[in-house]
């Protein structure tokens, strides 16, 4: 069954575009365009879920796709933009690793995750594209968390990792039980809210959301 879905051309295209949107996040220097790329990525993910739902005929995956569309590609980007506007942060992404090296590191991570996936022989050849894309999303999200200074980008990195896990789950199992998915969505939403409040607190205490400043002691 999963060969039929993931072998189709449109699935391959969507997964390739998800990878491209991840590189758009890696390559942009503005917070707004990072958030916009994340919204596009989530929209593509919702399309993937929609196609899986359509071809398996399971109704609960339609609900998952709809939730992805609403929560990840509309509500969470809105929360991001709200935070950016409220704390009047400078719009540039500050980096430890420059743009072009980080793009190249992203490419290396894609290759590494492809080789990792290839050593697992239980999966079919065609769904390996989805699985290696998901592993590379997780590793690139981790890399973004490490290499960006702003606390907002750490939040975005963990959401990219979550998107990667979602892609992996849906490509391996054709959709987890609805209850599990609902729990994950609730977790993600609450996580974003808590992280947003945390960023407000960091901004209030340190007058900046640069994570470098967290090392200094405030009396």
């Amino acid at each position, binding site marked *: 069954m999963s060969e039929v879905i993931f072998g189709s*051309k449109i699935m*391959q*295209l969507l*997964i*390739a*575009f998800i*990878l*491209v949107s991840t*590189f758009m996040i890696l*390559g942009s220097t503005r917070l707004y365009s990072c958030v916009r790329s994340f919204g596009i990525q989530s929209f593509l993910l919702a399309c993937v879920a929609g196609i899986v739902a359509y071809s398996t005929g399971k109704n609960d995956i339609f609900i998952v796709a709809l939730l992805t569309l609403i929560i990840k590609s509309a509500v969470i980007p809105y929360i991001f933009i709200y935070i950016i506007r409220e704390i009047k942060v400078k719009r540039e992404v500050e980096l430890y690793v420059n*743009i*072009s090296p980080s*793009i*190249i590191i*992203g*490419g290396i991570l*894609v*290759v590494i995750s*492809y080789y990792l996936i290839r050593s697992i022989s239980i999966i079919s*050849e*065609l769904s*390996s*594209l989805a699985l*290696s894309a998901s592993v590379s999303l997780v590793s690139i999200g981790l890399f973004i968390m490490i290499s960006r200074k702003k606390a907002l980008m750490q939040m975005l990195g963990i959401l990219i990792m979550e998107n990667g896990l979602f892609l992996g789950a849906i490509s391996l199992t054709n959709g987890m039980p609805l209850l599990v998915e609902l729990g994950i969505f609730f977790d993600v939403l609450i996580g974003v809210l808590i992280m947003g409040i945390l960023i407000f607190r960091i901004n209030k205490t340190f007058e900046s959301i640069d994570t470098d400043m967290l090392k200094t002691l405030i009396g």
Partner: protein
Amino acid sequence: MIIQLIFQIFLIIAIAPLLSGIIKKVKSFFQIRKGPGILQPYHDLLKLIKKDSVVSENASWIFHAAPIISFAAVLAAGLLIPIYITQLPLGFAGDLIAVIYLFALARFFTALASLDAGSSFGGMGGSREMFIAALVEPALMLSIFAVALNVGSTNLGFISQTVAGMGLDAMSPYQILAFVALFIIALAETGRIPVDNPATHLELTMIHEAMILEYSGRQLAIVELGAMIKQLLVFSLLANIFFPWGIASQGAGASALVLALLIFMIKILVIGISMAVVETSTAKWRLFRLPELLSISLMLSFLALVSFIIVKGG
């Protein structure tokens, strides 16, 4: 065969100025100006050809030879790129690697001539051009190789024939990633706005204009025409490798050839208009931010190769 060869050369020379005229017109439409007519490049070239050229005292023979060598190199590349038929007159003589290095030869001699006259602007333009060339070349190669791997040949005529035969099946992830990569490269190769501004002589931004600042009269006409032809060739590379549908294959009749010619014109027009849209909607980038843009292009073509290997099971 000989007739086709001569016809292709004349076709390239004849429609290259028209293409830049159309791009200028579209750009001025977006900027709410009237702009020059689309035949203006022809008038400019004719005017320049009638004039004598003024040459610096310090210039050596390289200054005189460079325009002719670059023009010949670009025109020779035109014989290796499918324009409206896949059966190329000189297809046996070289493949895409030859095309890339013919472009590199043209660029090398233009940069050399810019240093030769000894003006400071020329040297600056030459160094900037080589800086961009070093970034563009690997990305250009990788992106076409991603398609060549899929087809199994590096002959450009064969590639476009095979892709045309595949129909909508050709729309695979690697094809589209490579297309986006090559589109960014085409912006850099033809000196369009995020990389170079073709419309100004402002010393802070110009690259190609700075290199040819010392040329005048007939020599300038040859250099300008060479640049226009190169632009046409890069666009037809984009059109005929990724969207070759409608191209005439071997042994097509006269009516099929005319149809293929018309379709080619439309494709080039669409690419030219989209270039003009990109050019009006973006600002010129700082020179030292260009490696970011070109490394995105390099990484996209790299992703195209990787996803080809993943999907096809390397």
